C-alpha cells in the first residue's frame, strides 16, 4: 500500500503535465485563435475569479447539481429498492423504467420548460428525471442480490425497521449507492449545463451559451476547465472518502 500511495501522485502529475504539453503543442500548430494556449485560458479563469463571476456562476451550477442529485438519489434508491425487493412491483413498473431510460435528456428538458416555464424548479426537475432511471437500475440490481440469510437473521432477532435499515439494508446496498453516486455526479453536472444553456440566465451553462454566441473559444475552455477542476475536488474530497468508508470492512 505504502508503495502505491507514493507512486500514484507521480504518475498522475506526469500524466497531467503531458496532457497540458499536448494542448500547448496543439495550439502552436492550430494557432491561438482556434486553440488558445493553456496560459491564456488560465488567465481568463483568473480574471473571472477576480471579478467574482467565477464563484457566482459555478456556485449556482453546483447548487443545481446538489439539488437534483439529492432528489434523484432519494427517489431512485426508494424506487430501486422496492423494484428489486418485490417482484410484483418490478413487473408493473419495469416498462415505465424502460420508457424513462430511453427518453432523450433533451426531450425531458424541453418539455419541463414548456410545461413549468423557464424556472428553477423546471430545471432541477428535468435533471432529476433524467438521472432517476439510472439510479433505479443500479439499486435494483443491489436489492436483488441481497442475502436472504441476513434477512432471516434480522427477523429472528426481531430487528425493528430502523435497525434493519441501518445495519442490514443500507450497508448491503452501500456499494451500489456508491456506484450510483459516482455515475450520478458525472452525468448530472453535464445535464445541468444543458439545462442552463437552454433556459437559465446564470450558471456555467449560461456562460458557455454566452461565449458560444460570441465565438469566444478561450472563455468556453476556461469555464469548461473550471468545472473539471471543481468536479475533481468533489471526487477527491467527498466521493473517494465515502467509498473508502463504505468498504472499510472488506479484507
Amino acid at each position, binding site marked *: 500500500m505504502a508503495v502505491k500511495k507514493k507512486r500514484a501522485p507521480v504518475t498522475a502529475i506526469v500524466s497531467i503535465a503531458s496532457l497540458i504539453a499536448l494542448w500547448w503543442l496543439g495550439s502552436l500548430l492550430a494557432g491561438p485563435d482556434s486553440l488558445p494556449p493553456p496560459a491564456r485560458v488560465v488567465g481568463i479563469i483568473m480574471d473571472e475569479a477576480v471579478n467574482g463571476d467565477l464563484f457566482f456562476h459555478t456556485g449556482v451550477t453546483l447548487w443545481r447539481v446538489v439539488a437534483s442529485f439529492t432528489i434523484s438519489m432519494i427517489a431512485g434508491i426508494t424506487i430501486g429498492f422496492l423494484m428489486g425487493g418485490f417482484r410484483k412491483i418490478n413487473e408493473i413498473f419495469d416498462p415505465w423504467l424502460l420508457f424513462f431510460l430511453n427518453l432523450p435528456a433533451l426531450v425531458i428538458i424541453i418539455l419541463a420548460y414548456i410545461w413549468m416555464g423557464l424556472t428553477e424548479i423546471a430545471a432541477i426537475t428535468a435533471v432529476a428525471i433524467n438521472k432517476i432511471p439510472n439510479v433505479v437500475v443500479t439499486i435494483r440490481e443491489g436489492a436483488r442480490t441481497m*442475502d436472504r*440469510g*441476513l434477512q*432471516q*437473521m434480522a*427477523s*429472528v*432477532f*426481531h*430487528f425493528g425497521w430502523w*435497525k434493519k435499515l441501518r*445495519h*442490514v439494508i443500507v*450497508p448491503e446496498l*452501500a456499494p451500489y449507492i456508491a456506484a450510483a453516486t459516482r455515475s450520478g455526479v458525472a452525468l448530472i453536472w453535464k445535464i445541468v449545463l444543458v439545462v442552463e444553456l437552454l433556459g437559465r440566465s446564470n450558471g456555467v451553462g449560461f456562460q458557455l451559451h454566452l461565449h458560444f454566441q460570441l465565438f469566444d473559444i478561450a472563455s468556453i475552455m476556461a469555464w469548461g476547465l473550471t468545472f473539471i477542476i471543481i468536479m475533481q475536488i468533489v471526487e477527491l474530497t467527498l466521493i473517494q472518502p465515502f467509498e473508502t468508508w463504505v468498504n*472499510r*470492512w*472488506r*479484507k
Partner: protein
Amino acid sequence: MAPPDEMARTAGATLHIDITAKTFTRHDGEAVPVLRDIRFDIGSRERVVLTGPSGCGKTTLLNLIAGLDRDFDGAVTLPEHRGDGLPLSYVFQDPCLLPWRTVRENIRLALPEPAQSGERITWLLEKMDLASAADSYPQTLSTGMSRRVALARGFVVDAPLLLMDEPFSSIDERTAVRLRKLLLSQLESTPCTVLFVTHNLREALFLGDRLLILSGRPATLAADLPLASGAGKQGRTPAEVERLHTEIIGKFPEILS
C-alpha cells in the same frame, strides 16, 4: 415466590409442534408437499436432536418453528418467554454475520435492548475464546471462529428456546469436536430448550437427550426415540455413541445409511 424470570422459564415452557401440512409451490406452479403430520412436544430444557436424509425438510421445519415461514397448515406454540426478551434464538447453518459490523457489534445487535449488556457480551466473548477478535470484521475470521461468533450470538439473547441448524457442518472434525464441547459447556451455564438439526448421526448421538428422525416425501416423523440416560454435561463417550449408532442404523437402515 419465584422471581418473575424464573416463573416465565418454568411455567408453560413446552414447545408444541403440530404441523398438518407444508407445501412449496414450484416455479411451474405445481404444489410440492414437503412436510405432513408432524406432531411432537419438547419439554423445558430438553435437548432434542433432529436428523434425516439431506433435503428432507429439516431446515423447513426449523423455519416454521422460528416463524420465518408462516405459510403452512397447523400450529406452533412456543414456550413462554420474558416480556422484554426474545421467544427463541437461532444458530443458522451459514453463520449469517453482518460483514460490515465487528464481532462484538454482531453479537450486540441480536439483543433487543443492547444498552446494558456490555458485561454479558464480554463474558460470552471470553467463553467462546473470541476476546482478541472482538473488534475484527467477520471476513478476517476463520470458519471455526465465525461459527463461534454465531454461537455466542445464539446465546447472548438468553431465549428459552434455541434452534440450531447444522451449526457445525462443513468444518473439519477437530474443530467440530471442540465446538460441540463448547456448546455443551455453554448450555450448562445458560440452560435452555434445544432443537438441534444435523445430518450427522454421530453428532446427534453425542449431544442429544432424544432423537427425532424425519423422512419421506413429504417428510413425516419416522421415529421419536428417547436416548437412554441422556447425553449429560460432557456428551456421550465415543463407545456409547458407536453402540447407539449401530443400534439405530440397524433399526432404520433405509433412512439413515
